[in-house]
């Protein structure tokens, strides 16, 4: 009898382990604010992509983007590209902040930014430029 009870209790304990894991498995990234930011960045990407390829714009080590080589942008377009970069950086910063907030941990913002900065660079296409930790530019 005692043995049976012990087995049942053990079974209950073991069956709870997946629930403990579940809480760590996912971050909340589907709030309206985050979805809006994603859409805004996605529609801007079409405008920015040629400049990633040409090396005019690169990915910074802190999870943003920056003008790397302004001279490669035709003068007439420079202002426009500048405004895209500024808008993109605003969205990116807001995205990191919103993900932290959506998960009830505003203090995670910095960690989320660090994670994103690594992943942007990791998923960047060959030929795109990115900034290394010592602020120098490298080509993927």
């Amino acid at each position: 009898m005692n043995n049976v009870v012990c087995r049942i209790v053990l079974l209950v304990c073991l069956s709870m382990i997946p629930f403990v894991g579940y809480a760590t498995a996912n971050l909340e990234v589907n709030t309206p604010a985050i979805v809006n930011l994603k859409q805004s960045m996605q529609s801007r990407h079409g405008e920015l992509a040629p400049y990633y390829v040409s090396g005019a714009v690169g990915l910074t080590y802190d999870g943003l983007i920056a003008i790397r080589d302004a001279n490669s942008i035709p003068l007439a377009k420079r202002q426009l590209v500048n405004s895209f970069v500024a808008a993109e950086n605003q969205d990116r910063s807001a995205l990191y902040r919103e993900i932290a907030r959506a998960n009830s941990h505003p203090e995670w913002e910095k960690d989320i930014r660090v994670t994103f900065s690594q992943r942007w660079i990791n998923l960047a296409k060959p030929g795109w430029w990115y900034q290394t930790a010592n602020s120098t530019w490298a080509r993927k």
Partner: protein
Amino acid sequence: MRKILVTIGLLVFVNILPACVTINIYFPAAAAEKAADKIIEEVWQLESEEE
């Protein structure tokens, strides 16, 4: 038998409770990486099979 049950119950409680608290304090790096990849793939319209 009752004593054993109570002991085991207490043990479970003591073990599970801090685990829940811990999850909420430490930054879930793996989950963040997964979430970041998903968002980046959407924003850059990459194929998720690529990586």
